[in-house]
């Protein structure tokens, strides 16, 4: 039986004492989910741009598909990924199962529908005249698309944030493809999987401590993003990579 009061006190003691084991798990969670989001942004943003800015047959079906995927039970996605990554699976040759790589890819795939769906509606809500406006001021098609993307930047940031929140709080997929390994070469225990295991082995103090830290991490990141957004730093920051993307596209064109 859990002694709620006693375990909560223990949890705070663990946090305040700066227990290295706990903070290693927290930083691992941040690292895995951070990389997962970057991966998802790299493929999710172009998909969102394509869906929102191009007119093609079956556009509504594709949008509905991504919206539906948001609600896909994570155990189902976990199972699909597990089977794909397992030795006999189509991606078995990569040897990713129960490695940090599998967790990152799993989280990235999990959040892609969120990133795409919110991204598409953010881009679609931009004044349709912006595209023509950029073009009449001399922009090429890709430069005009970048102009539209900049107008949608707040919605895009929101989709990135929602995706990060979803990724760092994910249990099912992470557990199925990453296992819950501590020690050895492949340490895959993250905050959520650790909490699940700690509860099973009645380590409630540790579970509560990680739970509190998970909430603090989420809250802090959200507050930072809100502050940066107000100060417009993210918009300025976003210009760097977009400008590079623009240049590489021009070079190709």
């Amino acid at each position, binding site marked *: 039986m859990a002694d709620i009061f006693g375990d909560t006190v223990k949890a705070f003691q663990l946090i305040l004492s700066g227990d290295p084991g706990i903070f290693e798990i927290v930083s691992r969670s941040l690292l895995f989910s951070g990389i997962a989001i970057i991966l998802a942004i790299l493929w999710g943003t172009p998909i969102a741009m394509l869906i929102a800015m191009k007119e093609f047959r079956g556009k509504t079906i594709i949008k509905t598909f991504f919206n539906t995927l948001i609600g896909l039970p994570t155990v189902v996605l976990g199972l699909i990924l597990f089977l794909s990554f397992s030795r006999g699976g189509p991606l078995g040759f990569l040897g990713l199962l129960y490695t940090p790589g599998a967790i990152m890819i799993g989280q990235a795939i999990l959040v892609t529908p969120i990133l795409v769906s919110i991204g598409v509606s953010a881009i679609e809500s931009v*004044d349709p*005249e*912006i595209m*023509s*406006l*950029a*073009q*009449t*001021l*001399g*922009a*090429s098609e890709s*430069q005009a698309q970048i*102009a539209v993307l*900049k*107008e949608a930047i707040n919605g895009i940031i929101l989709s990135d944030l929602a995706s990060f929140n979803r990724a760092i709080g994910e249990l099912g997929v992470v557990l199925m493809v990453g296992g819950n390994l501590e020690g050895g070469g492949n340490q895959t225990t993250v905050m959520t999987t650790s909490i699940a295991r700690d509860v099973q082995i009645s380590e409630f103090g540790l579970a509560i401590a990680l739970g509190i830290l998970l909430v603090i991490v989420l809250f802090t990141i959200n507050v930072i993003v809100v502050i940066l957004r107000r100060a417009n730093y993210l*918009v300025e920051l976003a210009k760097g990579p977009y400008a590079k993307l623009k240049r590489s596209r021009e070079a190709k064109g």
Partner: protein
Amino acid sequence: MTVTAELKAVTKAYGTKIVLDAVNLQIREGEIIALLGPNGSGKTTILKILAFIENPTGGEVLFQGKSVNFNNTEKERLQSTLVFQKTTLFGTSVYNNIAYGLKLRKVPKEIRDREVKKALELVKLSGFEKRSARKLSGGEQQRVAIARALVLKTPLLLLDEPTANLDPKNAGILEEVIDTVNRENKTTIVMATHNMFQAKKLSHRIALMDEGKKTEIGAPAEVFGKLSKNLASFAAVDNTFNGIAKVTAAGTSKVDIGKGVQIEVTAQRQGDTAVFINPQDIILSKTAVESSARNTFKGKITEIKDLDLLVKLEVNVGKPFTVQITKQSFSEMGLCLNAEVFITFKASSVQVL
């Protein structure tokens, strides 16, 4: 005479709907040409084709002597820019809005800063660089949009109803800018408008548009001279009326515009006449005012519209008149919809076409 752009039998259709029907139009270097016509007559479509952001369905477009391939218009788009009727600004500072096209053209920062400053001076918005563009008033936003196009110094400048929905102060500033840019930079300007007075005042030539066709083209005096009696309904603009004029014993004329409304004008006219009264020249009062003004009518306020610093009212005296008053007068007079008011204007302030 050099031709900047030319439309040869240009047609545009959206599905089965034809919006431009075999239009031929030559735009000469250094001229201001006004496309005059009612809404839906194809003016905006011509501008979009000349801005190379809309493909014609048929016909040929020549730009600076060369036939334009609409599959790739990136080069031509750098030479022609359009200011939309609906003011659209990027959600950033005034500076970034105006500098956008210069950045695309890789203009160095020092030159960019200088050009933005000059463009802002021209539209009388000096010092607005750091302001958030979308937080400006409607008139100021439209002036930023014009400055953003002017700074590019493209050989062809296209303006779609540049002063629509602007109060007289902002409209006046823009008209001055259009005139200056044409005179000093020799910029060729194509301007769509449904305001014939603006077309007459600013342009060297007027092309009349109706239902996707160009019906007339020529110098303003020539076009207005040829025009049929329903000019006013053709180019609908506030306070423009068609009527039948009769010379009075006093040497002035009275124009009967129908519904019992007769407007006295100083010019001697007989027969079909179109008249225009500038909304600013009309005095609004709650009781009849004794004055030397020859035209006084009683009516009701049927519409109230908020402009930047002014309030635009529609007063129905049998025919609807547009009157503009300051916000302060509006609140001091305690006006509201359906309120009974008098409008008064001088015979000499009536413009006769």
